[in-house]
């Protein structure tokens, strides 16, 4: 697990199946093009990080992948199925989970119930909800197991509002994990975190099962280079470059517009 990004056991591009692929994805609000001809792909188990300055269209891209935004043109394929116009709940059920840039939790519920709701969505068809209360015990146990995996264990019956900010970021991931996704989209998992919390988050992300593909938006270069197999750089709605961390570091255009100031 603890290997630096470039040396991870998973080799990209040879035998793994492509999970997610976008074809010339465009989204415009009037004359403002927030993404323009974006082509990216994620293979099974890949750790793919999208970087780029504010306003580069990263979050808009993720919203298009999970149905929160409808693309103006282009296609999104997941396991070779066109999901371009699918609804968020269908996309989740197909195996793409996501977290949000700003904490997006069930604020009046307990920590456990936040995750249990997501477990219930995964385990029961919607008609299951008409069944007895008994199935809840199993769902609670499953929720506790996920919370343990995400290292949130003490007092799960607390209301969410009593969690620290960093813990709420962790809970974001726990909720997304409950859907048992094959691909997890993380929108700035460390945003607003202290350095110590960021380090914990890196550990947590590393501990996720290696079969799970991650597509992550991130600003913190420490996080980027300690996790990424592949880095895609976005700039004004377009993909500027995409490649291994080494390739990106050597890329002169990337250095010019983005990395330059920080390295």
């Amino acid at each position, binding site marked *: 697990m603890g290997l630096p990004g470039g040396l991870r056991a998973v080799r990209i591009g040879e035998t793994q199946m492509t999970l997610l692929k976008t074809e010339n994805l465009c989204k415009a609000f009037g004359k403002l093009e927030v993404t323009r001809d974006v082509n990216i792909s994620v293979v099974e188990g890949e750790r793919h990080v999208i970087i780029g300055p504010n306003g580069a269209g990263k979050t808009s891209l993720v919203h298009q992948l999970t149905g929160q935004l409808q693309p103006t043109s282009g296609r999104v394929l997941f396991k070779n199925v066109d999901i371009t116009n699918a609804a968020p709940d269908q996309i989740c059920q197909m195996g793409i989970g996501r977290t*949000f840039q700003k904490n997006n939790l069930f604020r009046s519920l307990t920590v456990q119930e936040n995750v249990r709701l997501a477990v*219930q969505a995964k385990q029961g068809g919607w008609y299951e909800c*008409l069944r007895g209360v008994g199935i809840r015990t199993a769902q609670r146990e499953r929720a506790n197991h996920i919370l343990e995996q995400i290292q949130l264990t003490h007092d799960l019956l607390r209301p969410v509002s009593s969690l620290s900010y960093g813990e709420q970021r962790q809970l974001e991931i726990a909720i997304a994990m409950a859907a048992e996704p094959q691909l997890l989209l993380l929108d700035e998992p460390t945003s607003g975190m202290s350095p110590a919390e960021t380090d914990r988050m890196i550990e947590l992300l590393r501990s996720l099962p290696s079969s799970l593909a991650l597509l992550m938006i991130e600003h913190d270069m420490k996080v980027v280079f300690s996790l990424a197999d592949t880095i895609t750089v976005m700039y004004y709605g377009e993909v500027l470059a995409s490649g291994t961390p080494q390739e990106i570091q050597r890329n002169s255009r990337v250095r010019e517009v983005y990395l330059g100031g920080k390295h």
Partner: protein
Amino acid sequence: MKFLRPAVFLALIALLGLAPLAGDYTLGIVAEILIYGIFAMSLGLLIGFTGLMSFGHAAFFGISTYTVIALGVHLGISGWWGMAAGICLSALAAAFVGLFCIRVSGIPFLMLTMAFSQLLFSVALKWRNVTGGTDGLTGFVRPTLFGMSLDDAVMRYAVVALGFVLVLGFLWLLVRSPLGSIFIGIRDNEQRMRAIGYPVQRFKFLAFTIAGTLAGVGGALYAFFNAFVSTDILHWALSGDAIIMVVLGGSATVFGPAVGAAIFLLLKNIVSSHNEYWMLWIGATFILSVMFLRQGVWGFLVGCAQSALGKLK
């Protein structure tokens, strides 16, 4: 908290059982409170547990009342069959209206539900040979139960009280069921519910239909209670009253809206016997409640009881 709810339930059953001792006049007021309590609780399921602010809930209450009375007056059909038909029609109407309304949320949802209920109001106003228009429909003969007519105040009250307890029990079970937890999730965070795989529209539709059906139960009982119906029952003012009841009592609990209905009707009965400006007093109470009792009267009492019990431990 564990034993608070059964305690409330037992106390309520005891009170409902003792009410007939208070005489027919009081019993009538209690029955009216219980009927509006059903109506307000059904709206509470939408406002408090699903986060849908409906401003047209009177439609489903009124359809049922009209069905019971119109079937009885025009076709001589027994009130019990009328009740079944009324509740079914309310359910169908709620499903139909819900199909359109759940596509939007917030203020557009509120306006759309109000528009549908005003549409029904106009129909009731104009379709005079069936509804009697503003004059209403008189001459409904109350049905009998075990050979005793519901003209008897105690019998009438017993049926209403039974209906209230059944609806209350149903709602208590519902909000604790997996389905109820989905409604609560939608109230808390609709976007996230979608993102974790719930088809939110389908569940909003379900909540809207259930709430409309329960309002229909209240409406049918109102037909037994009043034996008369006029267009007032479909007017938006009644939908507004129901919202006030929900907020007064507190929307975070199932029982709160029923407490709100009691406060509303008691204020109306007491104040209107002294002067005609009872609406003013309701309004003032509403404003005070919104300013100082954000969880409503019942929510406040439950909160007090919880903290008192917490101190005991």
